Every structure is written in C-alpha cells, then in structure tokens.
C-alpha cells in the first residue's frame, strides 16, 4: 500500500471533495423543492399535472442516471452549435461546463425519487388533521403550507436520510461529463500513478465519513419534534 501520492495531489483531492459536497447540496436542496411540486401535482386534482408528474417520476426512476447524464450533456450538447448567439451570451460559460449539466441531472433525478416519497407521505397524513385545518377556516393553500406539507415532510423524515445518502453515492457519475469531483480526482490519480486500489480506498473512506455525518445531521432534525414510542 502506497499513500505517498496524497501530498502532491492534495489540492486536487480537496477540490474534488468540495465539488462532491457542493453537487450533493445543490441537488438535494433544489431537487427537494421540485419534489414538493411533483408530489402535490400527483395527489392533486388536475389530471394533466398529475399525468405529467407521474410520467416524469416514472422516466427518471426508470432509467439509469448515467444515461440521463449522457443524454443531457452529450445529447443536448450536440444541438448547442445550432442555437444562434449562444456562444456570445452570458449563458455560455455555464453551458460549456459539465458541472451545470451534472447538477441538473442529479437534481432532476433526486426530485423524481423524492417526489415519489413525498407523494406517499402526503397521503399518509391523517384526514382528520386536514379537516381540522379546513374547519378552522384555512384556505386550501394555507392548509397545504401550514399543515399538510409540514406533516408530510415530518412523516418522511426517517427515509430522507437514506435518500440523501443514495444521492451522495450517485454523485461520482458526474465524472463521465468531465466534472472533477472526488471520484474524478481519484480516477486521474489512478491513471497518473498506475495505483489501482489506494486512491479508491481513500475515496471510499471519504464517502463513509460523509455518510456518517449525514446520518447524524438527520438524527438532529428528527429529534427536533419529540415522538412518543
């Protein structure tokens, strides 16, 4: 076992780790926001929105993230030259980087999984609690905002930690679109040094540690409202 490469590559590793954390944070936060919309559309009355949300979740849950990422990065990328004026627009610095597409794919993917979970927990909120809110004169929007959604999120909290960990584990895939996340850094180190296992071991240790941190953070959230067992 040879770990002497860590020193010369520390910069690369550190940036990779930061990028991994950033991608996780962005995709979880934005994905969660989209998921709320998806879940509400699925339990709502509008048939068009319902179908659209269902279709969305089915597609993103039914295809590999790898393919989704290739689709939007290379697939859409092959149409970029045909968009006039794109190169000179302010969007170009974003569109030319894999990071943007990686974040988008991860976000859309997370939203689909989370949307499905939130749909279930929205339906799990006891009807009576919603009737109590209606009986207090709340508008539908307020019922949703003050009672339904907060309750649904709380019911789902124990599963969210698991979802975030799954999301963390999905991030290395971004390397296939030139994003130098932690796994990307490890890949490069492996190529440069021809070491097969050592960089992977370091990376794996990082993910295990981060998983531990995520578990702890969510434990805090869960303890915020005491429950009786």
């Amino acid at each position, binding site marked *: 076992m040879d770990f002497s490469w860590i020193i010369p590559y520390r910069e690369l590793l550190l940036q990779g780790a930061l990028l991994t954390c950033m991608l996780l944070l962005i995709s979880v936060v934005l994905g969660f926001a989209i998921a709320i919309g998806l879940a509400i559309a699925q339990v709502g009355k509008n048939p068009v929105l319902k179908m659209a949300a269902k279709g969305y979740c089915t597609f993103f849950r039914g295809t590999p993230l790898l393919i989704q990422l290739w689709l939007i990065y290379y697939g859409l990328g092959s149409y970029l030259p045909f968009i006039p004026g794109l190169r000179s627009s302010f969007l170009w610095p974003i569109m030319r980087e894999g990071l943007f597409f990686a974040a988008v794919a991860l976000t859309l993917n997370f939203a689909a999984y989370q949307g499905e979970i939130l749909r279930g927990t929205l339906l799990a909120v*006891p009807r*009576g*609690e919603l*009737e*109590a*809110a*209606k*009986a*207090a*004169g*709340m*508008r539908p929007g*307020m019922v949703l905002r*003050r*009672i339904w959604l*907060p*309750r649904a999120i*709380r019911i789902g909290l124990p599963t969210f930690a698991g979802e975030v960990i799954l999301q963390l584990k999905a991030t290395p895939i971004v390397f296939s679109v030139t994003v130098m996340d932690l796994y990307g850094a490890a890949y490069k180190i492996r190529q440069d040094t021809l070491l097969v296992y050592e960089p992977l071991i370091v990376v794996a240790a990082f993910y295990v540690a981060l998983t531990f941190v995520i578990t702890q953070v969510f434990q805090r959230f869960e303890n915020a*409202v*005491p*429950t*009786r067992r």
Partner: protein
Amino acid sequence: MRQEAAQPALVVRDVHKSFGALKVLKGISLDASKGDVISIIGSSGSGKSTFLRCINFLEIPDQGSFHINGEDVEFRTGRDGKSYPSNARQVERLRSGLGMVFQSFNLWPHMTILQNIIEAPVHVLKVDRKAAIEKAEALLAKVGLYEKRDSYPAFLSGGQQQRASIARALCVDPAVMLFDEPTSALDPELVGEVLKVIRGLAEEGRTMVMVTHEMKFARDVSTRVMFLHQGQVEEVGPPSQVFGAPTSARCREFTAAGSH
C-alpha cells in the same frame, strides 16, 4: 362585531345529502339562537356526523339553505352536477366563525399545544401573535392545561388532547361551537374531565351544537335535543320532552335503551 341578540346564530333548513345512492340526510332543519345548547342524538349511521359536517361544509350538502352568523350561503351546481358553495372565500370566513371539536381531537402533531391553538387566530384571522398567545394561555388555564402549553400532542392523555382541541376551537371566538362525539374516543375516566369543560361553556351561555351519546349529560346541559333517525328528525324539543315524554315510538325505544 358579530350580530347577536335577537338574531339567530344559526339557521339551517331542509338539508339533504347523499353518498352515491345512499341518502343519508333527508331534509333536516335546525335553528339555534345565541346561548342555545343543542344536542343531537340517534343511533349509529343515522346521519348525525354528516349533518354536523354539513353545517361547516366539510361535507357539501346536495340541497338546503344556510344562514350562519348573519350571512346567507349561496350554492351553484358544478359541471359534475354536484352542488358547490358559490363563494369559497365566504365558506372559509364562515368556518372561522364555527369552532369544531372532533371525536379524534385532530390536533396537529407537529406543533406544540400552544402553537396548535394560535395557528388559526394568527394565520386565518390575522390576529397579532402576542395577543393570540395571551388569549391562548388564558384558555389553556381555563381548561386546566396551562403547564402543558409547550408539550406536543403525542405526550398528552386523550382527555388532555380533547381539552386542548376545545381550547383551539374557542380561540377563534366562534359564534357557534360544533362538537362531534367529543368524548367517545376517551376511556370512561377521561370522559369526565372533558364533559366538565363543556358544561362550563354551556353555563357561560355559549351557542353549541353537539353530537353525543352521553344521554345523561345531554339531558343536563341542553336547551334542546334533536333525535335523528335514518336521516330524518324524529323528535325535537326540550330535554324534558325528548327524554321524558317522547311522541315518537323510536325515540322512546332509543332513550329507554340508553338509560339502562
């Protein structure tokens, strides 16, 4: 602020309601003036809960006229042929003037007792938060739960939860309180404490409509008792009449069975 005095607090006429082919309410009327305590009794499935839920539009009646708190409620027929209130805002406004206490309490478990109580005043009536808290604490003291104000509902006994939900309903200062079997989810020990609170409200002169199976209690506190049978009013009158000398044979049977 509210119209009171001579004017009736609640006038409901000829309410009909079906679920699919099942006719549950077949023309029920109810008048309540300020200070009235009206008990609704009847066997299971007779439509008591459905009628009560029609009053605050948790169920939308197929037919009927409603005059609540000085306002008439208009209905329109929706594209699906069903009846809907014309004005959703009006329904929401009226609901906030009707305090409802459910059989299963339905406190919101993600909020403390205090938060539960100030939720509607602050967010629906836009009362100042500090004023709402003051009022809520006074109400909690009244129902004997002051020390529990920062507990979450899951940590309260059934009787305490029901008392908290009564305080929640009271905090919007409703013209009429609606109770749907407020004690039947409680074990006998806890029933007493909740009935005590309701009795206190009756003595204060609060307008109340109450579905209950506690015959003795209904007899003691009501100004009027209504006996429902298969979606119709079989007997209505002061408790002395309904329990003492009912004209309807069915009512006689029912009240006799209840008193053994």
